[in-house]
């Protein structure tokens, strides 16, 4: 994917750029708002990572609003040190697609950038059926099968599995799952998400079957055909 980073802090920018390049992405970097705006408007990107506090007291949200007004629909991940719920809502309302609070773990950033990039590829395709390996989900009839076997899931387990399947072959972090499946933006101290995942795995991966969900160290989970 082609990614633009607008971030004035050199160290953070270097860390993110290097990490994303290692993950196989093409990365451009702008260290101020005007340049960022110019580059974003002149070249197509798959994802833009936008810092909120930019030099010259420019709010990244103003740039996002300007980009959206000019018809630019590139998915944007907002980086911010402001963690109020209201700030998060303001960020998303201004046209941002996701919001990540500084400081962050790189795994979290990478997972979210991947999710955003994927969204731009199959944008708007609310698929009726999802499939990973021999696991199939019919979203409308809420029917899940593994091969010939029917898997019975609780509503929340269904939502969790749907999210994992929609983001197959991508890392999803615990925070992303908390936000998307439970709508919680706080951090439970016990590893509750892990327990939910392991319970789900018991249902979709019987002993004889190939595992589908993999734990990614220091990041989260990934669902793949090959486990």
């Amino acid at each position, binding site marked *: 994917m082609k990614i633009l980073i607008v971030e004035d802090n050199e160290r953070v920018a270097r860390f993110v750029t290097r990490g994303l390049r290692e993950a196989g992405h093409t990365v451009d970097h702008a260290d101020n708002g005007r340049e960022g705006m110019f580059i974003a408007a002149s070249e197509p990107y798959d994802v833009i990572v936008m810092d909120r506090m930019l030099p010259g007291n420019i709010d990244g949200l103003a740039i996002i609003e300007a980009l959206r007004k000019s018809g630019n629909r590139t998915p944007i991940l907002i980086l911010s040190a402001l*963690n109020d719920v209201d700030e998060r809502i303001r960020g998303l309302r201004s046209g941002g697609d996701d919001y990540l609070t500084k400081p962050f773990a790189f795994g979290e950033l990478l997972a979210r950038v991947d999710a955003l990039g994927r969204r731009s590829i199959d944008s708007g395709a609310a698929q009726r059926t999802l499939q990973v390996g021999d696991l199939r989900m019919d979203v409308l009839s809420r029917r899940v099968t593994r091969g010939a076997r029917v898997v019975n899931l609780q509503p929340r387990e269904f939502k969790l599995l749907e999210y994992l399947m929609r983001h197959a072959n991508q890392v999803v972090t615990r925070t992303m799952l908390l936000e998307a499946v439970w709508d919680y933006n706080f951090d439970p101290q016990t590893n509750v998400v892990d327990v939910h995942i392991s319970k789900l795995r018991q249902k979709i991966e019987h002993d004889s079957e190939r595992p589908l969900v993999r734990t990614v160290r220091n990041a989260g989970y990934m669902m793949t055909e090959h486990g």
Partner: protein
Amino acid sequence: MVRLIRSSALTWALSYVLLGLAALAAFAVPLWYAWNVTIYSGREAILLDDAQRLTDVFNREGVAGLTAHINERVGMQIAGERTLLLTDDAYRPLAGNLAAWPQGIPSNPGTHAVMADLAGQPPHTLLVQTTLRGGYHLLVGRDLSRFLPLERRFTWGLFASVTFLFVVGVAGAILIRRELLARVQGIRQSVSAIMQGDLRHRLPTARSGDELDTLSQTLNGMLEHIEYLIHGISNVSNSIAHDLRTPLAELRSRLEELTLTRPSPAETFAEIEAAVADVDRVMRIFSALLRLAEIDSGARRSGFVRVDAAAVAAEVVEFYEPAAEQKGVVFSFQAAGEAAVAGDPVLLAQAVSNLIDNSLKSVPDRGAISVRVGRRADGAVEIAVADNGPGIDDADKPKAAERFFRGDASRGTPGVGLGLSIVDAVAKLHGGVLQLLDNHPGLLAQMVLPLTSAPP
């Protein structure tokens, strides 16, 4: 004197005195006018009629006829009721009950109605003078002195009312002002004491719920909140110094040791990972503190909506169920119907989550946790989380919700010591309280949220 005039109590009281005077005037002026019209103007018309009748007699019967007529009437009359006088053109009396033409009567011909004081006669007489043909002068009068006492009484009454109103008004104003000033002085002294740093000081509220008392109570509530916030701030700075220093010191020594000893790459990476974990721990404390500050500021109250506390708790319970199951904990949930409050669903969920989290950490394997949501008799919604873990020592209970407090029982468990502080802050934000009780054995933590969810 300037202070006396500037006193608002005095201004108000004096305004009321003036208003009273105006009301009195509004009462007296029409009365006086009505009196004047009926007594004076009415009498004048009667006298003019009388004078006209006598003139008719004169015109018919001449001077001799009129003289006889007047003499006859004077003879019949009750003394003093009617004044009659007929003179020739040189004002020499011809008939009537006046000895001489009185002074001060205009001598021009025509009919006049004048008030005159007659020497030797009772004063206050209404006179009508007519000049007849041949230069004769005729005076017809009516003594009005019997109305004088009434008039005098009315005037005195009015005067007394004005004086009474004025004296009572001013005296009342001074008394009210003194009373108000004394109480304002009391409030001012308390506020001065508070400004000098004694935050525990409160405004005097001995009296029975009047306006000033209500104001004092409200201000006391505000002071309570300010004291709580200031206390929180100083607590936090102390705790930051203490609790953040520990992991930061650990982190620092870890990194410094790395630079000094330069161990093998495998060991270096293990140490770096441990360092990242240290930083994460500091971050968690930071975000918990920021969250607390956000809740304490009360800003979230503007986003309050109607929330069913039972539904929120049910979702959190469902969220924790697998974790409890994994630990072999008996986890139960009871809700008595809908429990609607005005609140922030995310914060309420976090509070319930923190309570369950605490219980999960403290109960032994195969312990029991029960969550109950119900409405109390007074309409308050109660969210209770009970466990059979070690509980909290009675001595520690008042301190348990303080920031960074960690009881002896929880020393060894993970956590930063802010969970209950957040629950407490959320309860306070919703106008309620967090109560920590004994579950015999274990902890019974309940959030009581009042029906109206008014600000504290």
